[in-house]
């Protein structure tokens, strides 16, 4: 017996519908055939993963209903089986999968809502790092300051959509006063998902923080102060101050 081969066949039986190869290794009896016994494991693994996806993507789930969600998960799990023992890492490809998933295409914003939920999930599991003391920048020479670039906190994600996925998300929260039928969801939105000391926040950048989407994007692309000044001119100091005050920027670097 080759254990490696047996495990490969078993994995195929769990993540592909065909389990005839794996069945060769398994004893069947008059209660359950070898294939049926393997089917118990396929069902159990899919059950574990579907319920974990349901916890990570609750709004996506309620948008399509439990039955259809389970079906989507079933197809997704076979296509993208987990590859990490860290449970929280499972589901990163779900939004991308939904974008291509033909039966779900009638809900055009579904994949973007899933992307928002994944961003919240990721941010939730990120460490809130303390920021460095930015006043130390004052000790740099002007020449040194010109090459400084900033690093955003890991506990922060930028998400853009052609739909008001923020309102869709809020409308599905307990006690929400937002009613989906009252809002125009066909509007684009730029969001910052971030972890504050009192929980996960979804901040709409285009109205409350004009310009900040471009600014945070430029920072995430490691633009230095000179480049930022070229793009944001006189607004640079106030933008920078505000981002530092909100705790979005972790540190400054030079090289």
């Amino acid at each position, binding site marked *: *017996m080759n*254990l*490696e081969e*047996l*495990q*490969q066949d*078993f*994995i195929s039986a*769990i*993540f592909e519908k065909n389990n005839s190869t794996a069945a*060769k*290794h*398994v*004893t069947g009896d008059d*209660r*359950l055939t*070898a294939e*049926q*016994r*393997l089917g*118990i*494991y396929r069902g*159990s*693994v899919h059950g*574990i*993963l579907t*319920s*974990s996806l349901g916890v990570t993507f609750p709004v996506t789930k309620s948008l399509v209903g439990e039955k259809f969600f389970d079906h989507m998960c079933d197809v997704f799990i076979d296509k993208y*089986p*987990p*590859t*990490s*023992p*860290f*449970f*929280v890492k*499972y589901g990163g490809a779900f939004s991308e999968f939904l974008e291509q998933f033909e039966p779900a295409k009638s809900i055009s914003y579904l994949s973007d809502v899933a992307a928002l939920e994944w961003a919240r999930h990721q941010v*939730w*599991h*990120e*460490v*809130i*790092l*303390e920021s*460095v003391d930015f006043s130390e920048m004052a000790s740099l020479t002007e020449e040194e300051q010109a090459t400084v670039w900033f690093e955003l906190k890991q506990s922060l994600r930028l998400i853009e959509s052609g739909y008001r996925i923020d309102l869709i998300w809020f409308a599905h929260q307990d006690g929400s006063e937002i009613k989906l039928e009252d809002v125009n969801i066909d509007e684009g939105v730029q969001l910052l998902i971030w972890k504050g000391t009192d929980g996960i926040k979804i901040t709409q950048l285009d109205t409350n923080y004009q310009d900040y989407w471009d600014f945070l994007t430029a920072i995430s692309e490691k633009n230095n102060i000179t480049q930022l000044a070229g793009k944001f001119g006189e607004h640079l100091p106030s933008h920078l101050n505000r981002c530092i005050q909100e705790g979005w920027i*972790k*540190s400054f670097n030079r090289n």
Partner: protein
Amino acid sequence: MGNQNSEKTIQTNALPTIQGCGIGLRLEHFDEIKEQKPDIPWFEILSDNYLIEGTSQREYLYKFREDYPVTFHGVGLSIGSTDPLNMDFLKSLKKLKDEVQPAWISDHLCWTSAHGVVTHDLIPLPYTKSVITHIVDRIKQVQDYLGEQIVIENVSSYLQFKDSEMKEWDFINEVTRKSDCKLLLDVNNIYVSSQNHLFDADEYLYAMPQERIAEMHLAGYEDHGTHLLDTHSRPVTDPVWDLFTKAVEHFGDVPVLIEWDSDIPSLQRVMEEANKAKAIQQKVLPLCA
């Protein structure tokens, strides 16, 4: 810069004593436990869920640990896999162990991942001499890395492999003896497998190596007609209580833990199950003394 590298120091006794009937710590009961500090001798935490540093869950655990002794219970070790041991996973586990100081670390005698794919489920092994050699080697590697004996649990199963050369209980005996690890005896798993594979649960139970048993598990299964499914979603059933009574008579005073992982009821309800186990211990143990 930042606090991510700071060493955690937790106000605890260095080596927690684990006694009596504990329960598995679940997210659903976090707030209640924090507020009420119920009289529960110890908790088992699902260590895989706390491996990421800096998360709110991990912070909760640091605080929690100041009030209760804990044991670690995991699924991710995949001790029976033919893939190399996942060193990232082990490294995280060791860091968590150093910070939280569990009384012991347990995982399952099975495989959960292979060929780079992780099932997050407990899949049985063929019971052969070559598999024993493979597993013993891996348990030793893990024990060397963690610097302590680990505790390995017998799993429920729904199938048997044609290549098996011995009984499951002989396999467990050989693996634990050769790797010099401890055993977490899940009484419910013995019962579930005995019904699924039509063997005598008592024969299995009495064959277990008494000196290696660190802990026992109790949980509830679902009856699917053709087979019992180990779901941890129900109260412990009567035949499992009977088997547990025999286990206490035979193995004496071993810490026991209630596992309830889906359709999780109130903390009070889980504690009732723990009290039932405690009552059996109290009834049986003086007779054994």
